[in-house]
């Protein structure tokens, strides 16, 4: 790989992306291999993120790597006032690769410049979370057989949703049609729409969650978060409009799958879980294979 670290999804060329997805496929067939035997991976979680951390630690453990680290900043020296620079310089001595989650934007890029070992960004504030994007891509390719010519529906908070922005940027490298479904106040920012215009990719915006979804190959649901609304009345009005229920899937395509970065609150009704078109739990499992592929690739072990 050109970059020794994975900080932003834009760090990957299209070829590198595809190659990582191919490698993840191999790990799906055989997730337990002693590839990381003798390696120490640091998982530095400056803010808690149980789901992401467990996924990384499962990925590393199945490859027989050892894990050192902390699960939130209160159990690290940050509480003593240590700078990120000093923390990374120190941890760099103890491990072969750093997985880092940090609430401040740009912290992962800085860490990658300080460390001699590769850094994997496991989320830097509202900025980037590239392993999430890679596992979303993996799930899309696996369920659709290809990344080309798909119609992707993004639903919910499209304004602040980091995952939907990264997914849009990544999928725009293929011939993708986008449909955006969101309340007025949480629409896709104009810079992303301009970007799609520049590439000549089609997109449609809707404020109603209707049977338009029958055209979808992928429905990517996100949470509409209460704290995004300045007016809580507005939130009450929209919170139940963007809920996916099983009966809504009746006329959707056979190949269509519902994705969600999780955790979900109420935006996907539990009656969808039994539908074979629901895919969010397998999607989470795919995160393990994708992270195995990213770590082994960054360490140049495969």
């Amino acid at each position: 790989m050109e970059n020794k670290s994975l900080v932003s999804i834009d760090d990957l060329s299209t070829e590198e992306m595809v190659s990582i997805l191919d490698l993840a496929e191999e790990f799906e067939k055989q997730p337990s291999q002693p590839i990381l035997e003798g390696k120490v991976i640091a998982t530095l979680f400056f803010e808690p993120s149980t789901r992401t951390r467990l996924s990384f630690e499962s990925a590393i453990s199945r490859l027989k790597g050892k894990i050192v680290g902390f699960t939130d900043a209160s159990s690290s020296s940050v509480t003593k006032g240590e700078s990120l620079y000093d923390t990374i310089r120190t941890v760099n001595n103890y491990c072969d690769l750093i997985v880092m989650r940090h609430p401040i934007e740009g912290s992962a890029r800085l860490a990658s410049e300080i460390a001699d070992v590769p850094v994997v960004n496991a989320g830097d504030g509202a900025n980037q979370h590239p392993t999430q994007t890679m596992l979303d891509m993996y799930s899309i390719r696996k369920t659709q057989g290809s990344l080309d010519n798909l119609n992707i529906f993004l639903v919910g908070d499209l304004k602040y949703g980091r995952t939907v922005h990264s997914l849009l940027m990544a999928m725009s490298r293929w011939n993708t049609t986008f449909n955006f479904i969101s309340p007025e106040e949480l629409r896709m920012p104009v810079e992303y729409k301009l970007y799609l215009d520049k590439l000549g990719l089609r997109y449609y915006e809707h404020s109603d969650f209707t049977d338009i979804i029958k055209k979808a190959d992928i429905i990517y649901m996100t949470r509409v978060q209460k704290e995004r609304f300045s007016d809580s009345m507005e939130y009450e009005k929209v919170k139940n409009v963007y809920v996916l229920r099983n009966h809504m899937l009746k006329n959707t395509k056979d190949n269509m799958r519902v994705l969600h970065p999780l955790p979900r609150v109420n935006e996907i009704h539990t009656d969808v879980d039994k539908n074979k078109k629901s895919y969010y739990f397998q999607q989470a499992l795919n995160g393990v294979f994708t992270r195995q592929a990213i770590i082994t690739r960054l360490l140049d072990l495969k």
Partner: protein
Amino acid sequence: MKEPKQLSVSAIENGTVIDHIPASSLFKVIQILGLDKISNQITFGTNLESKKLGRKAIIKLAGVYFEDDDINRIALVAPEAKLNIIKGYEVVEKSVVEVPDEITGIAKCVNPQCITNFESVTTRFRVVSKKNVSLKCHYCEKITDQEHMVIL
């Protein structure tokens, strides 16, 4: 009767004249170019009348010549600055500053959640638009536009 043209700041024999600096940016330019740290003879004038800028400043540096990369650093604060290279009291070359492709230091990232506003790290930007200068932070990837730009 036409009055003879008088120079507000005396001429130099050899060196560089930076003209058309907005008066309010003079000390920023001095700081960015590190002129407060060199021992060459420097004369400057400020709040001079200018049709274009209202009030302009001018700096004359004896025996100092700049590389393009160095002088372009002032483009953020003095986008219309003009350079005259002087040899033997004659202008031998004229040039304008150009906004460079990358800016290191100088500007502050507008994003309060950016790591550069927490740790002691030099800011770094890619210039995404040169006309209405717009900078993309190398770290947090957010855009700082001209309107919100703060010079460090």
